[in-house]
């Protein structure tokens, strides 16, 4: 395995600390209820919790049985019943239903309600209205950032995007601020806060105004020596990126199979090796087989983790390279086996022991190779389908503003052929954003085709896409009655494409060999969101291709490693004009210790030391953006990037969320944990 990259960007802070915190909080919360208890779980929390803990731990802390939080009777043998859920009205109704039923059956229970991530006055009001407030103890289980990779923290808040931009519910913004404050409590204040987008501005505002009220911890008032900045990107600022089809390995898995809480569901035969395996590291977590079969074959959850070195190597590569890479790994493995085999003929026991030890490692490598080959075999036929390629072609043409009206009729054609609803919507929105609106007449025809094909019940979806808060599916010209905020949000895609160098004319050959720009993640298109981060953290990368420059200057520098020292954070400097053209507020705040300006010495120090920038995506980010940011982090010495987000998104789950399509949550009672 190539480890240079990993060594080079060794994680500056241990993200696992968040796992420990969440685990401890859960244990404390469970222990606050004495005796054995029945745990009733919000299904949407099972995945996130699975990242924190396992069933054994829960059992150890007195959990007797677990149920999904569902309507209908709840029978429990224990006196204690603990509910764990997000504060949602429907859950409260179910809970009060349970309590009332138990009261009628005169079975006695103690109820505890743990709300995630915090208490909500709405919930207690509702319980009061239902007349059961007195019967239940309410407290909070503060589930915040969860590490889903060494450098990625996620709140795993699935509906964040919809909450903010469709329902106008900003509690996500508040929860994000809380989580970021926790981060500051642990590691000190972010010396500089940067943000783009109205909600990003709101979040930063919360961060700065909230501080003085918080009591005690000393670290809150110390500027961090680990962090150099926090960059908040509002999803609304870059809607284009999630609409595109992700082309990295991990991104494509997410697009095609779907990754939930960094678990992917694979055919059971793929996860379970035909022969029993001794490999420990790469063995799948002992999740019980889920009984629901999505297709013909049983599905099984497989944890995509960064402890699997092969996956770490593959996850961010463009899918076109995967086959070659897997092939290389397979060859290496074969050689290793052979060598061991010949080594076996050597007789000394010490040598034998060494060989046997090596075999264990090889086996786990073998196992993970098998799984990833299997996954890419699953993906491969899909990337060859006509629909997939047609949609890619439309995407690329739209990004280049090439023959727009033809693209629109291609989309119409796809509707006629009954393509996936999500794909159609993604392409339509993309067309609307990149061109500043689809011609009114054509749009009306398409909408009509759309509704007739997929059902009139999707009218609300079309309405919310056009609503002022989102405005990503608009006619052109806009009707005169359009509210001003919509006109203000008109996205300047064409000028941006130039100023941020979004499209790269790479010949495909070169793309195969080196990933020389973040645009490799979409085979030639650079995500705007990541370009914006580069505006702050790697200014050179926006203007020209650093990798190319590197090649030319390598001779001069000799063996200096060819990496440029990261420049200190100087805010948006140099890119103010570009930022001003993008709708939404721009923020740049210095955050110093209360009262005192940061001493100059501290700033000078930063140049030598490795610092870390945190990039927070409000409203979710895609795997490709993560891949691109990792690439950015690798380009410079002295700066690491930690990615934090409200959740992992892709175009499909955005559309599903908006349309209210509930993808079946598979799994049995405790499959996720």
């Amino acid at each position: 395995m190539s480890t240079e990259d990993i060594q080079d960007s060794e994680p500056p802070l241990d993200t696992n600390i968040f796992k420990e915190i969440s685990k401890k909080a859960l244990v404390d919360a469970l222990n606050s209820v004495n005796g054995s208890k029945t745990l009733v779980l919000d299904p949407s929390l099972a995945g996130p919790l699975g990242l924190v803990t396992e069933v054994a731990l829960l059992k150890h802390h007195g959990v007797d049985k677990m149920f999904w939080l569902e309507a209908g009777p709840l029978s429990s043998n224990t006196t204690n019943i603990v509910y764990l859920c997000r504060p949602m009205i429907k859950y409260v109704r179910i809970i009060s239903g349970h309590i009332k039923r138990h009261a009628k059956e005169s079975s006695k229970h103690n109820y505890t309600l743990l709300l995630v991530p915090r208490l909500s006055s709405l919930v207690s009001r509702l319980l009061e209205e239902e007349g059961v407030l007195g019967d239940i103890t309410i407290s909070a289980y503060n589930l915040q950032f969860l590490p889903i990779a060494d450098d990625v923290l996620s709140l795993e808040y699935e509906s964040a995007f919809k909450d903010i931009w469709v329902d106008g519910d900003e509690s996500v913004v508040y929860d994000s601020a809380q989580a970021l404050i926790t981060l500051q409590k642990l590691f000190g204040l972010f010396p500089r806060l940067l943000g783009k987008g109205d909600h990003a501005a709101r979040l930063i505002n919360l961060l700065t105004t909230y501080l003085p009220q918080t009591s005690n911890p000393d670290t809150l008032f110390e500027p961090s020596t680990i962090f150099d900045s926090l960059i908040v990107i509002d999803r609304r600022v870059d809607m284009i990126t999630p609409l595109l089809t992700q082309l990295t390995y991990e991104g494509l898995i997410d697009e095609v199979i779907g990754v939930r809480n960094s678990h992917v569901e694979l055919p059971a035969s793929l996860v379970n090796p035909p022969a029993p395996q001794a490999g420990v590291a790469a063995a799948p977590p002992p999740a019980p087989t889920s009984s629901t079969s999505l297709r013909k074959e049983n599905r099984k959850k497989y944890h995509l983790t960064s402890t699997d070195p092969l996956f770490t190597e593959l996850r961010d590569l463009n899918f076109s390279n995967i086959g070659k890479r897997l092939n290389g790994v397979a060859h290496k493995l074969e050689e290793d086996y052979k060598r061991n085999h010949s080594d076996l003929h050597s007789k000394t026991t010490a040598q034998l022991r060494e060989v046997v030890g090596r075999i264990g490692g090889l086996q786990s490598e073998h196992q993970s190779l098998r799984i990833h080959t299997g996954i890419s075999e699953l993906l491969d036929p899909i990337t060859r389908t006509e629909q997939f390629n047609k949609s890619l072609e439309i995407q690329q043409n739209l990004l280049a503003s090439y023959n727009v009206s033809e693209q629109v009729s291609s989309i119409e054609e796809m509707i006629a052929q009954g393509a996936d609803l999500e794909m159609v919507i993604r392409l339509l929105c993309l067309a609307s954003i990149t061109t500043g609106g689809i011609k009114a007449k054509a749009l009306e025809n398409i909408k009509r085709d759309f509704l007739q094909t997929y059902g009139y019940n999707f009218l609300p979806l079309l309405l919310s896409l056009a609503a002022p808060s989102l405005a990503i599916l608009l006619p052109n010209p806009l009707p005169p009655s359009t509210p001003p905020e919509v006109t203000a949000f008109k996205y300047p895609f064409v000028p941006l494409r130039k100023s941020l160098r979004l499209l790269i004319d790479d010949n495909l050959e070169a793309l195969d060999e080196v990933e020389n720009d973040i645009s490799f993640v979409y085979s030639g298109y650079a995500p705007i969101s990541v370009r914006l981060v580069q505006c702050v953290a790697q200014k050179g990368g926006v203007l020209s291709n650093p990798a190319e420059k590197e090649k030319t200057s390598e001779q001069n520098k000799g063996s200096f490693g060819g990496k440029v020292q990261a420049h200190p954070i100087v805010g948006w400097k140099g890119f103010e004009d570009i930022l001003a053209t993008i709708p939404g507020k721009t923020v740049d705040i210095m955050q110093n210790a209360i009262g005192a300006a940061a001493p100059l010495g501290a700033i000078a120090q930063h140049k030598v030391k490795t610092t870390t920038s945190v990039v927070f995506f409000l409203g979710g980010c895609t795997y490709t953006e993560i891949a691109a940011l990792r690439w950015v982090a690798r380009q410079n010495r002295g700066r690491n990037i930690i990615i934090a987000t409200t959740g992992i998104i892709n175009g499909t789950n955005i559309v599903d969320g908006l349309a209210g399509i509930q993808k079946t949550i598979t799994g049995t009672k405790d499959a996720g944990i």
Partner: protein
Amino acid sequence: SAVLALDEASRMVDPSGRITTVKSAQKFFSEDKDRSFEAKMMDESARLLALQQQLEAESDGKISFFGQSVNETIRRCIVNGMLKKADKIKSDFKVSDKRFWYTKLHALTEIRDFEGLDAF
């Protein structure tokens, strides 16, 4: 409020109740002159539901149509040999030729009606 009515409609099981709520959504939309497209669509939706009810009655409730999309309704008509009905839906709902033929093609392939396919 129109969206609320729609939401309600989508949850209703009772056919006539559902048509009524869709109609009320249509009324909400028609009150706003910028929403003429939505109003038109809701009108279509209500017409479709009524037609589906009628189709179900004609097929003695053997084939379920209610709540399906226009395309799906056409498909089910063709699969069950009600070609005339399918053509009628096409003209009633101004289904584009392209979309109609694709639907028909898929439907005919599904029932392996090679004569029908040949007649294309």
